[in-house]
């Protein structure tokens, strides 16, 4: 994988995670499922990259961990989006739209 595409993937992954969390807090696997669902199977997330992304985003204060006890009495680690995360998502979404339209125009021309 070239660095450029990893960057894109990283940035996109962050956005997708944030989007998933924008409705409600979820645990790791739930987020992975959600992303698969929303993207209708186009993006199949590598669990390793996902966990690295969680760590990175937690460090940057975009998401917050939350430990919940499930009904089965097990402790599970959930993630919740922060206010900063929401702002980041908004910004990234706008940027993405702009870039997508530009690329579309380039390809049509």
């Amino acid at each position, binding site marked *: 994988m070239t660095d450029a595409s990893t960057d894109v993937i990283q940035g996109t992954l962050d956005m997708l995670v944030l989007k998933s969390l924008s409705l409600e807090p979820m*645990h*790791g*696997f739930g987020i*992975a499922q959600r992303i698969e669902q929303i993207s209708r199977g186009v993006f199949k997330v590598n*669990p390793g990259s996902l*966990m690295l992304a969680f*760590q990175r985003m937690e460090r*940057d204060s975009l998401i917050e961990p939350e430990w919940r006890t499930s009904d089965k009495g097990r402790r599970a680690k959930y993630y919740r989006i922060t206010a900063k995360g929401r702002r980041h998502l908004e910004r990234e979404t706008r940027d993405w739209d702009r870039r997508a339209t530009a690329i579309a125009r380039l390809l049509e021309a």
Partner: protein
Amino acid sequence: MLRAIALGLRRLVSRKHVDRELDDEVQQYIEHATEAHVKAGLSRADAERAARLEFGGVENVKDQIRSAGWDAALSTIWQDVRFGMRTLRRNPAFTAVTLATIAIGIGANTAMFSVVRAVMLRPLPYAKPEQLALLWSDDPARGLHEGLTAYQTVVDWRTSSRSFSDMAIFSTTSATLMDEPRERLTAAYVSANLFPLLGVPPVLGRVITQREQDDRVASVVLSYALWQRRFGGDSSVIGKALELDDADKGGLPAATIVGVMPESFAFPDKLTQFWVPATLYWRWERERTERFIVWARRWGVVGRLAPAASLAAAQRELNAIGSRLGAEYPATVPDFPGYVPRIVGLLEQVTGHELQSTLWLLFGAVGFVLLIACANVANLLLARGTIRQHELATRRALGATRGRLIRQLIVESLVLSAAGGALGIALAAVASRALGAAAGPYLPRFDELRVDAAVVLFAALAAIATGLAFGAIPALRVTSVSPNAVLKEGARSGRSLRRRRTSGSLVVAECSLAVVLLIGAGLLLRSLARLNAVDPGFRTAGVLSVRLALPRERPPTPTEERGRVDIGQIIATEREVVLSGLLEQIGAAPGVAGAAFADDILVRGEADESITIPGRPQVPAGQLYTSSVSPELFATLGVPLRSGRLLTRADVALKIRALWGGLPNHRLTLAELGRVSLAEPVVVNEAFVRRFFAGDDPVGKRFCIDPTGPKTYWYEIVGVVGDMRRQALERQPIPEYFQTFLPRSNAELLVRARGDPLALAASVRRLVAAALPGTIVLEVSTVDRRMGALTVQRRLQTALLTVFASLALVLAAIGIYGIVHYSVAERWHELGVRVALGAAPRDVLADVIRRGMTPPVVGMAIGLIASAGVSRLMTSLLFGIERSDPVTIAATVLGLAGIALIACYLPARRASRVDPIIALRSE
């Protein structure tokens, strides 16, 4: 960002907890994935397998997550540090040599930095000291420096100048503290605005107010030291009286203590013990309106520059003001220096320009020593690196990046330099203390030498820089080989040629630096030797010097006052009798070969005498000096008589008559006056004759001082003595005339001893106390030591540079030895082959020595060229020798070559004894 730091900290602190969390999270993920698969219809076992497969390498992912934070980088560095320390422990010999080398390099530099910091970098103890400057009325044409100024002129400057926000005056004096035990102290007359100008508040009480100055109130501010010493630091001292007696004509009255200054405060020097208003000076009213007369010019001036002003701008402004004043108030005396002051920054005044440049020179020199130390350690690391190549290659093969290895090697170097640096700080502390003790009494600010936070910081930075400097080259060099090549060939590497070249260059650099230092030290040593060989012209060894503050002459009795006889004459005659009697007594004491009085054995300060010799050109002030000596002085100090006769006791009587004698008729010409007036007999030195009499015999000739004033005073030359060099020996003897001794206040008693002069001190003190009760002994020393104080700076710089040069020599020798040693070890196999093929041991010896000596020789050549430039910086420090002194150069070259030869010879001898069979077997 804070979050990142917090997370990292958490991971560092509770690693197990965080790891378990990570495990849990991963575990859950897989469980959830399994559930999903189960829901999709797989069996539990299949679902689990699928989930795990999807996840990928669990440990791999966990590892990546764990090593992503900054704490991970920190812990790998910590690992490197521990590994480095282990490696050092395993090679004690190598570690010891490198630690010692680094400790010496950093220690010497740190010690030198502590000197530079204490003397030059540390600000003076005043508010915004960079704005403070002194204003001197110099007269460079007459050789007068640090000339004092008249109060009226200071007023003129102060009102006109905009570059200075304020100016204050000060003048030091000697005063006797009359409370027992009596002490002679240095005090200062100051204007009330001095303390606010300097910006240092008192630690107790207050300072002198403007009101007190205007009303001439006798208030006094004490120094911290005086307060502690005489009053025990008692805070109720405010309001108490200080009984004083001024050594000059008008005694200081008893003064009321109003305040105490803090411990760090001193002005104008550390000797000044208390401050009183300038208006208390007994002739204040008389002198304050004068501009020209020499005795009105007695004030030192300190100014604070306005915030935006620079020294250069202030100097320009005062030049202009001075010219304007010169036009408005033309001088009425011939020796008036003018109204233009020379402005000197306060720090530069305290330290002296000469001392500053000397210290920078030495700081540069000691930097060379550190560079040589670095080169040595780099070489040793390079050599050791060859041995470690196998280990490093294995690690490379196992996946470590070159960057990771370089980082590890550099961390190891930093560990080494940190340990060496810590040792170096300890060494520097010891050296600092010793330097401060040795030079403290003689050189400014040296008594405040210590290893404080700034110095430690310097040492730390030096250690880091050193570690990077000597670690970088070996790290890069050693890891530049491809692991493949190393692992295939075993321990031997074919890249030794490049390594040898690097080593060689390092040795060349070391030797050239060492040569520069050695030549510098050699030049200074020879200068010192030449200086010590200068004959001072009088006996300096074995002479006791006792500096005294004589008690006041007795006041006249009522009878004498009524009798209207000349009281001054009587009292002076009495004093003379007492003093000669004392000298006789001391001369008769056991162990004494002679005794005499002088006002001061050393020529101090400026010679501001001006004499007129009828029929010859006027001698301006600054060219001449005068001293008062008792008649026995020349005999006691072994000064030869060249012509005429020496002074006698009868001459003292003549002097007294001349001092109190009748006024001559002013209608006579100067020459006629010279013939008829009473003249005081004086003896002159040869320099006087050379300068003013062009070699004619001056005996019998007369000269006078102040020929146009009301009190022209005449002297008659009765003899010529040999020159006495009583200043720094570098200077020519100053023309001098000696008057007979009739001291008012200060005197120096010189006693020539048959044995150790200091052994006579106690009995001399007793005799003095018996003859002149109330005399205060200021200092007991020997003439040797007092002359020695003149050369302290020269001796210090010579000693330090010699030490640095010696260190450089030793380090260079160790470096050469190490390289040759390692080179022989590397070439063991090849040498064995040579010998097996028929080479004689002598050939092997010659070969090794030739190879080993090549870098030092090249280095010496470069060093000789470099030192030609460097010694240009030192010309002002040399005495009696040329910059290109052949003896010094020859000694350096032979010395360094000789040591290098020995360093090469030892391993070469081992090499020449190589047993070919053993050598060929070893790999």
